[in-house]
């Protein structure tokens, strides 16, 4: 009995010592390594996992390049970076919890937003509360930035910058296209972009003959597509994420749906979409915030679009798309702001981000008063011969817009 008591008392003493020592040791390690910690809540599992993995690739490439160069220059010293990931399992309320955990428990200095407009908006409340500068690398909807927050910045221009050029190109290239059908995923970004499309189409005198939403996790679109087909649209515009759009394209083919113009946002920018849909993806148009065909020279760590693409290919053996590039540029923007501020003081870094006006491999970066980027011209592209071909803007155009999707 005595022995047992002794053992349990010893164990208790030992565990108390361990509890006291571990944080101290941890702090010493962090201090010795002079790390800047960035929090990244991501949906690493669940329905949004493919998108999360892209963001993770982008962040990791940036962190690797920074650390290879010795770290970020903060005043007279260099500090390496560490990205702390948490998985919120594609569950937005959990994204908010994990963002808070990253700030309060993991003690990150800065934050990257969770994926998409909905989760970014939800989590922005937390980062604003703690005054943590946050860059949203995948949030474009105006509702994310209209909250009057000071610490939130975003690398995507508003949704109408994607749809307006599209409508203008189609009006110019295909004057016979008049009837537009829109099918949108009932989710913040896909629905917002569909609504922008509806607005832009009506402004240009096109007739929106079909506008329907489908629920998240919809397994079958045949009924909606039959209704759409009955309207004989000239332009089919579908929004959603890769799985939705692969399924919609497959079922459009099943129902022998053809149209002069088919636009899908946001799947065709990804190679996985082209692989999964095969030849049926030919001439599908889309728009995104970046394309590797761009030729920007930058002051950031990557230097130019060509160099970024080269580094990305070397590391991952695939071409980068806008989601990965946006994640990388978000890190690069933090880096430039910290270096300019000469400090990791959150308020100073926030102020540098707010007054930032720089060239990067992503394009020119200047944030508006609400924190959303205002300086970028998003490219419009089309899948031609199994590859994405930029058709707008003229400065980076690779080919002409083609009609006919079946």
């Amino acid at each position, binding site marked *: 009995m005595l022995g047992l008591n002794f053992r349990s008392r010893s164990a208790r003493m030992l565990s108390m010592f361990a509890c006291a020592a571990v944080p101290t040791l941890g702090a010493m390690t962090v201090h010795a390594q002079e790390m800047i910690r960035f929090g990244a809540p991501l949906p690493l599992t669940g329905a949004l*996992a493919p998108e999360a993995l892209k963001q993770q690739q982008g962040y990791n490439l940036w962190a690797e390049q920074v650390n290879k160069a010795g770290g970020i220059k903060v005043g007279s010293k260099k500090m390496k970076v560490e990205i702390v990931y948490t998985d919120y399992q594609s569950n937005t309320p959990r994204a908010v919890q994990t963002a808070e955990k990253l700030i309060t428990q993991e003690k990150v200095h800065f934050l990257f937003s969770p994926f998409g407009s909905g989760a970014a908006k939800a989590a922005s409340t937390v980062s604003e509360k703690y005054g943590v500068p946050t860059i949203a690398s995948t949030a474009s909807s105006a509702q994310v930035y209209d909250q009057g927050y000071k610490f939130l910045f975003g690398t995507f221009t508003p949704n109408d910058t994607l749809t307006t050029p599209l409508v203008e190109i189609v009006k110019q290239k295909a004057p016979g296209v008049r009837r537009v059908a829109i099918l949108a995923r009932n989710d913040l970004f896909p629905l917002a972009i569909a609504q922008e499309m509806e607005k832009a189409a009506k402004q240009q005198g096109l007739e929106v003959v079909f506008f329907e*939403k489908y*629920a998240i996790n919809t397994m*079958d679109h045949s009924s909606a597509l039959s209704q759409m087909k*009955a309207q004989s649209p000239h332009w089919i515009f579908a929004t959603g994420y890769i799985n939705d759009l692969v399924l919609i394209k497959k079922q459009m083919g099943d*129902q022998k749906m053809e149209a002069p113009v088919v636009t899908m946002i946001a799947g065709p920018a990804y190679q996985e979409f082209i692989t999964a849909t095969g030849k049926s993806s030919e001439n599908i148009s889309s728009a995104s915030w970046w394309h590797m065909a761009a030729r920007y020279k930058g002051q950031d760590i990557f230097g130019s679009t060509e160099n970024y693409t080269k580094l990305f290919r070397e590391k991952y053996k695939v071409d980068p798309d806008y989601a990965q590039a946006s994640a990388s540029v978000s890190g690069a923007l933090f880096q430039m702001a910290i270096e300019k501020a000469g400090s990791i003081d959150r308020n100073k870094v926030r102020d540098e981000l707010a007054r930032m006006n720089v060239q990067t491999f992503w394009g020119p970066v200047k944030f508006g008063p609400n924190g959303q980027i205002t300086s970028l011209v998003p490219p419009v592209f089309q899948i031609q011969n199994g590859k994405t071909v930029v058709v707008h803007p003229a400065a980076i155009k690779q080919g002409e817009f083609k009609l006919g999707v079946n």
Partner: protein
Amino acid sequence: MLIFQILLNAIVLGSLYACIAAGFSLVWGVLNVINLMHGSFIVLGSYLAWGAYNALGLAPWTSLLIAAPVFFCLGYAIQRGILNRVIAAPVLVTLTLTFGLDLMLNNAMLVAFKADYRQLVLDPSLGSLSVGSLVVPIDRIVATVFSLLLTLALFLVLRRSRVGRAIVAVRMDRDASRLMGVDVPSIYATAFGLGAAMAGCAGVLLAMIFPISPIASGSYLGKAFVVCVLGGLGSVPGAVVGGLFLGIVESFGSLAFGPEHAITLSFGLLIVFLIVRPQGLLGKQGFE
């Protein structure tokens, strides 16, 4: 004409739902086990079809010959080795156990195949069949025919074979069956194996139609739940009727209320049936 097209879509979709749910219904009805691994078995079957097509050039309908025995053995082993140990425990215990096993299986698939969506693209494509302005994709017809054949085969096994009669007997009265000399643990394992084989085969057929990803398992499981409640537990014809009913409700619901309400409608129906007719359309009352 739109109405006929939607009816056609609904029948095809309903047959696929029947195939998704038949094995789930069998296991729930006979073993009183709510097998939460069912959706993951379906996805695993889809990966099998995808791998067999891309690596060996085997058409999905040929892959059924591989999937059926492989998944039967997998299901038999899981029931015999794990679930039989707690089969007499309250349903919550087996539910939790299959939930845990599903987490492991699903995460193993995430590690093995990643969360990327894949699509089994048949080359050349089977195309679509047109009758006037009505169009039906041939891959869906193939999947529907094989789904109905598989469901019919399951029905005949339960009706005509000795093992099938034993399964039905165990379902009706476990203790009486044991007294009549039925090896109950073995019958349980056989029923679970059959359920897994049905799920695997459904996955093989669905690979031609839906994108493949481990995260699709939840959607399949949800459909199986609804179909079982609508059709009646443990009843193979009930799965067919429930599947068709759900297909029709979703398709016409989409026409009447918009596609975004189709899923809400199916789960609303589930609640109504649980309250008003818990035994389902073809199920018998009294199973506890």
